[in-house]
């Protein structure tokens, strides 16, 4: 008998393998060489320190949005608003990073804090509406995404700059980049991954080791029993959303203080928040699982850019990612197939 924890591992791994195999088949059907294609994918990341660093920079915000979604999921909420929370976090970080003068040990933490607070505030609104009025958080979050998109554009054009589409770069004291790393890799590899990994630990500790986590999960599983146990259900819903939004806001800071070092107007969403849903799903909503799945996502996204050298269109990888998610989501089918296999063995 497979235990459920074992399944939590097996299903994502099988899904990834199936996704890659399906990608290979599609390449074959369309007349590309899958071996060359995947070789180019691999080389696209591991051939040079530059691209390896770029990959790390890609992974970092994925980890954080993955955590945001996973944290909400684990506490019974669906924070589809990570997208908007990333945007407000991004702009808040850049705002603090450009507007203030302070020594680095104050400036950088302050900018990170601003991003976290902005993300948390953005998540607070769906949280409080759900807690007090029972409005579903998905509906409100989606609306909050659009509000974030337009407000951040407005702020960039009218407050942070004088009718520009791009802000000044953040001051060095607020930047996550670091001369040593830049010198080493020639890339914009920044220290954000430390922040992200720290947050992985934070999420794990909150959920698995604290009384707060005990309450949040209990409310997510069974509100009636939580109420019976004397927990404040409404307050806990809001706290879950705040923490989830905080992670997403920090993902924005990674971009604003690290990878890009500025903020710019957007006509569409960055997709970091939406991809976070996939990351969380593939990572089994476990903080360490999120690190692994974010790494896979970062690797595939950066590596795919190199696939054109093998004559393979990089959209193939988008298909592979979509298929992986599909397989994970239909995990019960895989579970069923495994059980059938097991039964077959016994006979």
């Amino acid at each position: 008998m497979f235990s459920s924890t074992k399944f939590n591992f097996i299903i994502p791994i099988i899904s990834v393998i199936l996704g890659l195999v399906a990608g290979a088949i599609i390449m074959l059907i369309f007349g590309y060489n899958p071996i060359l294609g995947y070789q180019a994918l691999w080389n696209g990341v591991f051939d040079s320190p530059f691209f390896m660093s770029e990959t790390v920079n890609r992974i970092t915000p994925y980890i954080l949005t993955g955590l945001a979604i996973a944290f909400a999921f684990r506490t019974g909420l669906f924070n589809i608003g990570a997208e908007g929370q990333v945007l407000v976090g991004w702009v808040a970080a850049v705002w603090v990073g450009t507007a203030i003068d302070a020594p680095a040990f104050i400036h950088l933490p302050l900018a990170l804090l601003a991003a976290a607070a902005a993300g948390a505030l953005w998540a607070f609104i769906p949280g409080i509406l759900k807690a007090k009025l029972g409005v579903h958080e998905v509906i409100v979050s989606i609306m909050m995404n659009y509000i974030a998109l337009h407000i951040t554009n407005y702020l960039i054009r009218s407050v942070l700059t004088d009718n520009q589409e791009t802000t000044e770069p953040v001051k060095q004291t607020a930047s996550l980049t670091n001369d040593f790393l830049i010198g080493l890799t020639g890339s914009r590899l920044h220290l954000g991954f430390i922040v992200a990994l720290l947050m992985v630990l934070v999420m794990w500790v909150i959920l698995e080791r604290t009384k707060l986590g005990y309450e949040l999960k209990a409310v997510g599983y069974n509100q009636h029993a939580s109420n019976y146990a004397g927990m404040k259900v409404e307050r806990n819903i809001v706290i879950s959303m705040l923490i989830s939004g905080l992670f997403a806001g920090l993902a924005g800071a990674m971009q604003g203080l690290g990878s890009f070092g500025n903020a710019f107007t957007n006509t569409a969403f960055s997709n970091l928040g939406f991809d976070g849903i996939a990351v969380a799903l593939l990572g089994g909503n476990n903080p360490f699982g999120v690190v692994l799945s974010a790494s896979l996502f970062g690797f595939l996204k950066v590596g795919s850019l190199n696939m054109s050298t093998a004559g393979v269109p990089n959209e193939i990888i988008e298909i592979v990612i979509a298929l992986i998610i599909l397989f994970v989501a239909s995990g019960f089918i895989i579970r069923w197939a495994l059980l059938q296999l097991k039964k077959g063995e016994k006979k």
Partner: protein
Amino acid sequence: MENYVIEMLNIRKEFPGIVANDNITLQVKKGEIHALLGENGAGKSTLMNVLFGLYQPEKGEIRVDGKKVEINDPNVANRLGIGMVHQHFMLIDTFTVAQNIVLGSEPKKGIKIDMKKAVREVQELSDRYGLQVDATAKISDISVGMQQRVEILKTLYRGANVVILDEPTAVLTPQEIKELIVILKTLIKEGKSIILITHKLKEIMEVCDRCTVIRKGQGIGTVEVSETNPNDLASLMVGREIRFSTEKKPAEPKETILSIEGLTVQDSRHVDMVKELDLDIRAGEIVGIAGVDGNGQTELIEAITGLRKKSAGKVTLKNQDITNMPVRAITESGVSHIPQDRHKLGLVLDYSIGENIVLQTYYQKPYSTGGFLSFKRIFDKAKALIEEYDVRTPSHLSKARTLSGGNQQKAIIGREIDRNPDLLIAAQPTRGLDVGAIEFIHKRLIEQRDQGKAVLLVSFELDEILNVSDRIAVMFDGKIIATVNPKETNEQELGLLMAGSKLEKEGAQN
């Protein structure tokens, strides 16, 4: 050669860390009501889930009408004419009776569902078996007893020849049980066979033809009901003698612990369910509330424990006004509550049994210091309670969901008593428990009383009320209409009172 409809031969089913069914054989004759008896956690539900195709056995053989079959999912079971009514119902609240019944096998008109036909078919079926179900009623509007009939209809609609009923009477009132028994007899007359799981030996004696006993996952044997008696059945199942009435010394009530004055409580539809109710409970006594379900007992308890708002009145606990306190403050001031609905209120099913043990105390020392939990302390406590209350589980880390119904209940009772309350509220504390466990729980309640606790017992089982309480308050239409001494009354008198008739001799007060 006997004529068996169902034969389960040498079935073995394992779960991680536990063998739930170890070499069990069950043979059901055509046209009989076959009882399945065993302690909580003995493996009854598991065995039935194997027969219904929800679990795959590791070993063993199933035969239907003498033919070997492979039942790997419930659809196969349905096709073979096996239907099951689960311990916890599986109906969709917002659908009507007919919609629930035809779900998955809807009559079609072209590609559209022919709802008229569905309603007609369901109604015909209901009339034929005397179920008196209204096919167009919404599930959320009908009683638990009716919902159970809907589940039975569902199996019949799918063509069941053999109906499995997993503890159907645990959730029913005595009146509803009588009606169910009539229904079961009708089913048999129509040529069906029934497998009935129940912990109530009286019911087995009354309706069943044969009874298979399992103990700790092992088949003990099958007996003819006409050749046995409740005592023998109980000892077969538990492996020792069982006492059906618990001995206790007379109560020595002391100071008043709980005092309720003029309490009025509304349900969620804003109907007054408790009406200007007065009740005192003193230290060292067990007050039993007798009453037909729906006369305000649930709302009364929810109001005392702070789960429901009070629209008028006052509740005092040890001279402290707790009327408007939140749940946690009431709990902390010394109230324990064994809730009626253990799945909805009593447990977080996806938490381990260990985590559930500290559901109200997780934030206190020594379980939590500075916001961090000490799982060592929590699990030490859990292990101790599991041991003390004989909760059968592979480990304290097992999800509460995986425990058998009776063992979930034992865990809750252990948790609530262990908090050492001044007032212990027990709502249907022995629902779904085996006779051995009931004896154990009753002893515990009396022990609490002897230690000077006030105990409020709500139960639909008159046996239990008469046997355990020191004072019986009869609740009717939101009020306490009589208080009687259990030694001076009997089931008949209580039955009349519960139906609302007044007591002539008001002398039995207190």
